[in-house]
């Protein structure tokens, strides 16, 4: 992976920047050029709060290339309090006691390292929201 491929996603990965349709109010993450709900093309940028609840998840035991060293790890779909759903890793918790409905909050974390370029990729991951 080259460097631009990662940095062009940094608004989403570093700040959870989403777009809100100016016509119907639907929030899209990542940003889109056409609203999937009403087909409008005008949006406002918003930052997601990072808070949400776990809808479904899995624990990856057989990992793809680049993730072999961190398995097992949990990946889930989180419904953010703004209503939009985001896929991400869930960390800093006992994987086996995760359950759907758990309250989670996003944190800025190191995701991966690309060997050839030395590029270190950061992104959001979710952790249990214990109110601190």
């Amino acid at each position, binding site marked *: 992976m080259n460097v631009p491929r990662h940095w062009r996603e940094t608004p989403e990965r570093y700040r959870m920047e989403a777009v809100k349709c100016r016509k119907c109010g639907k929030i899209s993450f990542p940003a889109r050029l056409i609203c999937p709900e009403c087909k409008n093309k005008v949006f406002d940028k918003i930052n997601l709060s990072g808070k949400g609840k776990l809808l479904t998840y899995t624990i990856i035991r057989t990992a793809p290339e680049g993730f072999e060293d961190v398995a097992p790890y949990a990946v889930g779909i989180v419904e953010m309090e703004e209503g939009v*759903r985001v896929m991400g890793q869930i960390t800093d918790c006992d994987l086996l006691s995760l359950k*759907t409905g758990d309250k989670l909050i996003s944190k800025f974390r190191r995701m991966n390292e690309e060997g050839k370029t030395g590029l270190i990729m950061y992104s959001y991951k979710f952790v249990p929201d214990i109110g601190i």
Partner: protein
Amino acid sequence: MKEIAVIGIGITKFGELWEKSLRDIAVESAMNCLDDSGIDRIDSINIGCMSSGLFNGQEHLASMIADYLGRLDIPSTRVESACVSGGLAVRNACLEIAAGVSDYALAIGVEKMTDVSMGNATYALATAADQDYEAFHGITFPGLYAMLARAHMERYGTTREQMAQVSVKNHYNGSMNPNAQFPFKITQDTVLNSTMIADPLRLMDCSPVTDGAAAVLLTTVEKAKKLNKHPLVVITGIGSATDTIALSHRKELTELKAVKTSAAKALQMAGKTINDIDFAEVHDCFTIAEILVLESMGIVGPGKGGPATVDGYTALDGKFPVNPSGGLKSKGHPVGATGVAQIFEVVNQLRGNSEKRQIPEVKTGLAQNMGGSGGSSICHILEVK
């Protein structure tokens, strides 16, 4: 659309074919198909292949496969829509005939997956997901279907045992399929004690990494009627639909909308309802996928896929046999070949040539093939006339 006849079918052995290359298996399936048809004419080729670039470092199959088939002067096209690439090749070949551009259109599906390590194969398959917003976070295909499985289990009470029975049924059917990668029976315990891949899915819930190819030759019904080699099998309905590529963007996690829409469209074109269908080959890339497909197509009601499997409703001798070939689980899943291999099985059943796994007196069959986590789906309805 006018009806299209399937006059030839060909397949290779599915499995780890160490002695054979991508081009070898693609050409072998096409040769078997032409032999079966008794016709030695092709006006166009459509090749379904998901990722020869990542599996073999080889793109430009349009040229390579036409070249090694010895047909250098006809249109050749490679199509891709992840695991529905094969179904898409068949659909495009149908359109060639319907448009009157080709009289004899060949569709080939091929994937040679064992030329790379398991990590690289897992990576290649994960490119069917949203690369920047799903695969980036380390999700795999078993992982995506595991999330669907968990949602289904929590909403409908679907159990691990019910899912295991999909695998047990498909292995039973596949034990009678000489082309299958794993032609042997298994028990529920085999599934429940196999290695955990992505909770709650275990190894024996997952279709394997497979090399294989299949091909079909299509023509107009008028031309097919002049041939007397096989019973006349006709494609009477085709439905194709898509859904969001990312699982997180689906409103529903317990049904596959593209499957529902593609099946409804195919049934409408054929002038039929699901109750008019005698049997189906469906995309059981994971055990939960077969359950989701049964429900999304309306073969059973929402939440009833697991219990129906346990009750034998979808067994070879059940009311609605599903995956007589052994499905992707037992027969193997060379991704680009699967959609064409499903048509092979449906035609073979309709001709009455499926030997030990033949379903008696079948007249109408359905093939359902999908890509990714249900981001694309194509259904074909076939009838013997």
